[in-house]
């Protein structure tokens, strides 16, 4: 059940992000839409790692290795998600800085004022 909720939530987030990406004219908002999309994907990854009633895959006094095997969530998606997040952060940073340069060049923060290259 949990997985399903998370997945659908992730899905909605992605749709929302895409919509923002497609419909906003303001560069920063587009980037925000983009981050939403990313977040959705990350959520999806986490959701796929979930197991019903799972615990964090961390050894502590309470839980032994056997406990982990029987009860911990899948550690791989968590690892992947971490990587994905960092990469998303990097892309966002670059996007923002490019947006700044576009603005500096055309003096407009609106996407449709920034399309000299075409055809």
């Amino acid at each position, binding site marked *: 059940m949990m997985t399903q909720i998370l997945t659908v939530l992730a899905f909605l987030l992605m749709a929302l992000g895409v919509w923002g990406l497609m419909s906003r004219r303001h560069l920063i908002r587009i980037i925000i839409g*983009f981050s939403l999309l990313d977040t959705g994907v990350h959520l999806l990854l986490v959701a796929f790692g979930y197991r019903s009633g799972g615990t964090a895959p961390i050894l502590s006094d309470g839980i032994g290795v056997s406990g982990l095997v029987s009860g911990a969530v899948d550690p791989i998606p968590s690892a992947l998600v971490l*990587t994905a997040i960092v990469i998303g952060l*990097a*892309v966002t940073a670059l996007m923002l800085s490019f947006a700044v340069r576009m603005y500096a*060049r055309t003096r407009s923060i609106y996407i449709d004022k*920034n399309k000299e*290259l075409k055809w």
Partner: protein
Amino acid sequence: MVSPVVLIAASLGFAFLYPLVERLGERAATRIALLVLAAFAGTTAGWTVSLIGSGVALTADTAGFVAPLSIQLQVTAVDALAMTVVTLLALAALVQLTERATDRWHGKQVVLFFVLLLGSYGLIMTRDLFNVFVFMEISGISVFGLLSTSRDGRVFEAGFKYMVASGLASVFFLIGTAFVYRSVGSLSIADITAAAPVALASPVGVMGLLFLVTGILIELKPAPANGWAIDTYQAADPGIGALLSAVNATAMVFVLVRVMPILAGASPVFVPLVLIAGAGAFLIPQAQALLQESFKRMLGYSSVAQIGLVVLAIVIPAAGVPFAGVALAVPLVLLLNHAVAKATLFWIADATGDDASGFGGSLPASLRGRPALLVVAAIAVLALLGLPPFPGFWAKWSLVMGLAAGGHIGLLVVVLLGSLLEVVYLGRWLIMRMRHVDDDATVVSQRIPADFAESRADAVSGAASGASDASGAAAGAIPVGATVSLGLATLLMAGASVAALLGSGVGMPVLIVLIGVAAFAVLDVLRIPLRLQAIVAIAGLSWWGVSAVSGAALTLQSGFVLLFVGGAVVQLVALLARPGRRAGLVALIVGMVLSLAALTAATSPLEVFVAWELMTLTSFFLVVRGRFAAAASVRYLTFSLASALLMLAAFSLATAANPAFGTGGGVIGTLTTSVPWAAVLLALSVLIKLGAIGLHIWLPSSYAEAEDEVSSLASSVLSKAGILLLFLGAGSFAAPLFAGVALNQVLGWIGVITALAGGMMALFQEDIKYTLAYSSMSQLGYMVLAFALMSHLGWVTALYLAVNHLLFKGMLFLAVAGIVMRTGTRLMYQMGGLIKRMPFSFVSVLVGIIAVSGVPPLAGFGGKWLLYTALIEQGWYLQAALALFSSGIAFLYLFRLIHSMFLGQRKTHHDTVTEAPAAVLIPQFVFLVIIIAISMFPNLLIKPLQTIVEPAFASSVRWEGYTVISSLGYWNGNAVMYVVIGVFLAPLLWLLAVKGRTYRVEQFNIVFAAERPHTPQSTHYAYNFYGHYQKAFGRLLDPWVERFWSGVSATAGTVSQTLRAWNTGNPQTYALQILLYLFLTYLVARGGL
């Protein structure tokens, strides 16, 4: 052997430490960077050497655990080879970027450069799905960072679009990965491939893979969802463009290679999906590129198209001679071929510094007078177009063969069409670059000055042309970096070509062609004077020709060898007339002749095709040398390569139907196929080369605008290649096509109409060279007609006409060459009265035109007699009548020719003209002697021709002494000659006897209406000589064909315009297109809505 992981560690470590290295000073740091790259190249090369052949792969697990526990890197021979080339290109690129005039790379740029390289290595080596994603992002982000350092401010806009697009792509990829992991429970590609048929066959699995493959495809920048990539190519620093398409794209392709087995295993929908994607990605950009003004943007379109082709090749198994059975050979070769060539072009764009694509004609002829750069550029373009001897050619051949063998006719069409479009825009760029400085690239027909003022323009600027070449050379020098990197890339390409050539298993004759060209190119580089080169060429070719045919029985191919080599050798003498350096001329001529010879010696379709392409190329470079030949050679290249592509299609279809097709040595009918469409395509391709009516618009201007010696060679020798091919394909044309009409009947009509139309058009030309060009077209029409008869007499006639045409057309063109050289004009009405100044030229022209028009007693009549006898024998009455009519027309334009040049009133400024140089006269008179000989003794020629035709048909004429007797009539050339001499001598003697004192008066001594004209030289009646004929025919003479083809090109333009309007430049539109792409793949996968 070095572990793959070390390569990654090393490049990353160097990237991290680079700031420290730079403490030693920028230049030193870049030097060290180059050294590191060299070391990488050595490593990868070492892998290649040790892995190739042995089936094993080099594997490295990380973290001390084995896959799937940890991430695994692997290098197969293919990977190693790709990595070697990528590294070498990267090396060249770094040289170019750090050693150029402006914007030298340093600091973080070099760092990012290494990160980019690292990313590409990772993409090629990793065997873990998620790791692929990481490396994709590494490459991506380093590219973005590098982009920002371009001069062009628009690059940020482009980069933003790029980020949005690749962001979407990686989202797709991640979703896909997530689903795959969910279904398979592992990220190791090996595991996934193994599990795919079971675990991923479910709808969920397929959907996941759908996301995955869409993500990868988007990263490959597929049309129609690639506007962002194109914009980036346009705005980016050319150096980055080179990196993008040479390094980045190459690595990305490997991701698809890795994933393809998974897809194929999971569901059958994916192969067609990828095929469709590849086809679209190849064809659409080629069309969009047609109208590009920006060279970089054009290259961008070309790059994405080439990648599309590679995607196709990944899925289509190779067939045909080279590479058959070697897995992934075709895509790999295509990929590397493209990488090297494209990088070269980007670097040239950077070095020459201007971004014009040559569309619209406003492009500095910046390669004229810079032979080295020109050669490099030409190699790159030809390699991109997949022409021999470059590696891409063999790959394309195998791909096309594979397409035909697999029955993918639609894809076959797509590939050929796309290739043709590519020829148009890349060829145009090259031609515009190498055209002569005062050529505005509009000349496709004769140019008549507005008024009749005698313009000596040609002569004057002819003298000036040398100087202008020099000025072209003086243009901006190439920076050292570009020189090194271009040299490296060219060496790479050359080496690859040699390797591919030796691996392709084509025979010696083809190799000889290249050796010959290379040898004379070397002579050029050594600055050996033209005359010496010509002498060497004459000696070498005649020795070679003699050794080729001596002892061999007289067959079709030995006969044609004699024709080609003999004709060329004689005409080469004319080169001795002009001293001074004409770079590449002799090399190209030799190459052309040898490739024609190779055509005769070909023993497989592949060899025929290679020889054909080489012949096309050499002749193209000969044509383009002309001073106003730019527009003409665009047409020449386009039509010739169209013909070549048609031939390729024909061969592939025929081979698919019958694997033994064409493997028989060059006897008559080797290329016989029973597949009707193959036959039609073959016929079309030959007809284009023969300038048949409707397909002829390239012919006149190409023959006329080429240099004079080249013109004569082209129209006398080169034009016979098509005839040879007709004979090779003979058996294909007899089969009935539709409603019992056989192809050869169609050919016959086309031939005779061509003969008539060519003559008609020749009738109204003021420009002597255009007259002769059209006359060649008409004569070729006769040969096609005769061949199409498919009878003994018909074929003898065709060959007879071929020989005869070679003789007199060589004569006429050379005579004209001499006259143009002396008078400095090509317009006939500007000449006149030259008979007293240039008597020898007059004689050879006189004999020439008698021989053409077929007036007895000279050899021409033999041809006519044979032709009509053969035609009537076969019951082709109407064709016979038309042929006779058009030979009357021929008589008209020939008389006009000799009259306007030699008779009538001489222009005053021609009073001092002298006879043409001996070197030009000698070949004419050699031909003349031969003509007289075979006129007196027709059997000298006809009997050998009969033996050539014997294998196909039994003789249908018999000989009584000198009389040849057919079922219809008879002709005794010998007796006719004597009678004519008799009836000629009798009146002559009589005249000499009765005439009283004869006053020889000056030419101007004419009177009409009892009055002497004030300026007699102005009374030369030559301009618009047959005006009344024009009047009589009226609209029939309108240039319908020209109109048709300009209509075609206009349509192509419109299509291109519409297609490229799709790339609106708006990031959101691009995002929209990408989502649309995803949706479409979804629909394809589901098989419709």
